[in-house]
């Protein structure tokens, strides 16, 4: 098992709303050579969960283990073994593509000669040789995404975490990104992938968890989910689950009195 998450919870304090539970006892696991998808609307808690896995946030309770390391106790070791990419991990404006990937490669401790080889390989595979020496501020969105991907995998981590990697991308660039993710899975990586786009889930994910309001509503392979809820269309299944959950929440609120 490469990722094990047990009852992960994160609560914040909002002055207005009081204590807000962003992630509520989430549990799942992910193996090597598998893409695990977190599917849910905005505000479901996907980003917070993934941030906890990347050790940037600390869980309020619960445990998570990545590649055998606990995210709280062995945070540095966890970071060494993951590649994390999200909308909030940007690239430096005043560094060229090559410099940036090299910088992070060095930070991840890749030895210098290996680093050169690896970077040549990456730049070839991702077709980035055209803009090796372009500054970050002058790149197009597609170039930036590729640089981010290169940065994410430069140290060949066994575990990869992608938080809405195709957000804001056009169809062509998004396709490239998704193909990269698929090939990484084929190389035996353990990948967690969050999105709210149905098509991506259908094409990529081996197993899915549907999240809403910080809780997992359903989890399993697409086939299992279809059987369980008697619904072949993933999209319909998704909306039905969300609707049910909203209804329960609404009636609970009314029963308790606001």
């Amino acid at each position, binding site marked *: 098992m490469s990722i094990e998450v047990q009852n992960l919870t994160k609560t*914040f*304090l909002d*002055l*207005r709303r*009081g*204590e807000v539970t962003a992630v509520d006892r989430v549990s799942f696991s992910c193996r090597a050579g598998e893409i695990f998808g977190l599917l849910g609307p905005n505000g479901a808690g996907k980003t917070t969960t993934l941030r906890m896995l*990347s*050790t*940037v*946030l*600390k*869980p*309020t*309770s619960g445990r998570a283990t990545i590649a055998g390391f606990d995210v*709280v106790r062995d945070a*540095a070791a966890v*970071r*060494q073994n*993951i590649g*994390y990419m*999200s909308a*909030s*991990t*940007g*690239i*430096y*404006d*005043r*560094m060229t593509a090559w410099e940036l990937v090299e*910088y*992070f490669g*060095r*930070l*991840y*401790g890749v030895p210098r000669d290996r680093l050169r080889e690896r970077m040549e390989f990456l730049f070839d595979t991702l077709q980035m040789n055209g803009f090796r020496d372009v500054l970050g501020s002058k790149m197009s969105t597609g170039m930036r995404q590729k640089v981010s991907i290169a*940065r994410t995998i430069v140290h060949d981590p066994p575990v990869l975490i992608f938080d809405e990697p195709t957000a804001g991308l056009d169809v062509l660039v998004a396709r490239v990104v998704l193909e990269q993710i698929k090939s990484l899975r084929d190389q035996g990586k353990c990948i967690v992938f969050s999105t709210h786009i149905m098509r991506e889930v259908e094409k990529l994910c081996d197993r899915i968890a549907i999240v809403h309001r910080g809780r997992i509503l359903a989890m399993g392979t697409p086939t299992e989910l279809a059987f369980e809820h008697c619904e072949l269309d993933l999209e319909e299944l998704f909306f039905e689950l969300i609707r049910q959950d909203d209804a329960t929440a609404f009636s609970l609120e009314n029963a308790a009195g606001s």
Partner: protein
Amino acid sequence: MTWSNIKLIFLRELRDQLRDRRTLFMIIVLPILLYPSIGIGLVQFTVLFVEQPRQVVVIGREHLPDFPPLIESGGERFVPELFDVPEEADKLRIVSDNDAKNKLESGDVQVILIVPPEIKEQIAAGQGFRWQTLYNSADEKSRVAYLRLKEALDNWKQQIIRSRIEAEALPPDFANPFVLAPQDIATPQQVSGGLIWAKLLPFLLVVMSLTGAFYPAVDLCAGEKERGTMETLLISPAGRGEIVVGKYLTVCVFSMATAALNLASMAATGWVVARQLSGAVPTGAPLTMLAPPSMASAGWILLFLIPLAAFFSALGIALAAFARSTKEGQYYLTPLFLVTMPLVLVTLAPGVELNAFYSVVPVTGAALLLKTLIQGQYGLALEYFLPVMLPTLLYAVLALRWAIDLFNREEVLFREAERTDLWLWARHLIRDKGPFPSGAEAMFCYGIMLMLVWFLGGFLAPPGNVDEAGRRAALQRSLIVMQIAFVAAPSLIMAAMLTTRARLSLLITRPRVKYLAVAFLLAVLLHPIIVEAGQHIHRGFPPQPKWIEEQLRDVLAGPVWWQLVLIALLPAVCEEIAFRGFILSGLLRRMSPPTAIIVSGFLFGFFHMNPQQLLTATVLGWVLGIIATRSGSLLPGIVFHFVNNSLAVLMSTFQNHLDESARNGVDAGALRTIFDRLFRQPYSDRVVFQVPYAVPVLVLCGLVVTAALTWLIKQPYRSPAIVGEAAHDGEFPDELDERSPSGGFGLNSIANSPINPLAQDPRDATV
């Protein structure tokens, strides 16, 4: 923390900043262009300024005697020989005007000289007379002109005296027994160094390293958050400490570079300007002012760049880490300036010299040391080199640790914009109160206490027009009010309002007897050591003003039991409630126990607002903190505090008794023997706090105190804020002893407590 990661981050940030064109311009090009422009403007200005002569109106010019001559034959200026430097005659121009008085007020003329009509007769008759001159001291020009005129008139007076002496055939130096022939051993460089550069350069250096550190710090921390690259760095294997130190080094480089470039440019400009001005102005006193600083001074400045840059960079990084955008970060510069400026301007005050107290004050110590070096007082500088440098570096390290702590806090790194709503926030404080106060509440309480004492303390002072008994009563009353209302009350009120377990927050629990015994013992045996330390400290500090000693004497009058209540019991209870109760509990929520104890000690020491007491009070605060955290109760601390203060009172009573016996000629007998054994100076009438103890007594006390403190430190923590309220809800929490003792300063026993280690006090999120 690995050096390789730090180096990687440092070099990248450095290269990144240097690639920013605007940064390069501000740091390198601007100083090189700016100062020469100012210098050229200054030269033009000064040249113009120098050439304006001042107008003097002489009314009654016709009455002046022909000999000795006052006004030159042309009638335009005074006789040049009357001035020390003859060319100065050109600076005063004599005009005639009918409307002289109004012109004086409006500033058109600077001085009016009214010659009395009978002046010739009065001089001839040897009569003294008053010579009226009118000038305007509020106007700088008029004042200077008057002084020049006075110089000329004084010399004219000497000429008259000389002619009278000649007339009487007396020796020529009859009226002038001697003339002072001063020889100034200072070179012009030393004069200008002492007068100008020693004051100006430390100030400039502080300002430049501060601003040079602050802007890059804001860009590297808050700016990176804004640009969205902070998270990319945070998910890399680099630890938070490595990230902070890497950025810190970059900011240091920029701070030093900014200060060095600015100062070099200023120096070059100053040198050129001095040469230009020397061409325009005749030699004289003003020019020595502009002698450039010696090479040694330049060396010292460059050396001092390092500690100042280190300190300001650390502070800048910490504040910038706190800001969530560059805009917010830049707002923090103003308060930082407002705090730093007085610290550096105080070095310009005449009475301020390098001593033990000032060397530990941040910024002031370094500025004073630099001033001493520039003035060439190397002996003094060497003596205070370490006392200044070590604290400065310590402060830098503390600021860096604070920055690293901020980087570890999610609420700081991922702060989102929130609409401030005071009502909601206040309601949240009260509604969501935890069992113990938060760190911010503790500091707020301390702030309130300070303000109450500063602002309302004045009202408690006795009025000036009462007799001694009345003054004593007023003084005692003010002591009582201060302790109860200003020290204890804020803590009590805040504990009641803001915590659910006020009793535990204030450490009102029953301690085990052994702690009471140890506290008593420590207080008694620590007393001689404190007195001894006090003796040595007094030497390094400015002496306590007389009125404080008199006040103490006043309060010490009256029956012994009342003195004990006033000086020992009341402060013991109130100060313990505040410092070891509320404030320490709050600090313990925010920092590790050793840090909390150290900080509470400093707060306690500073509260006494008395340089002499500051050090002893801080150390006592540490001891009291150790006692409170290990015993989990306020009572041992109160005992310690009470005994410590009582000893001062009792010693005074002891002395008074011996005084009386000596006065009455009675042999004090046994008491006298005790005195001689305890103290190492012969009995005499001294203020009670300064009797030094005998050396064997000190050694014995030192050993026992060390043993007692070591034992105490090894005890497990019992303070409710550390071990949690559950552990304290039994009267004697025996389980605490079965747990492994904390042994030394390091262990955090939160891991052993029944409370979930990951649970956070929800209020921590909003600080």
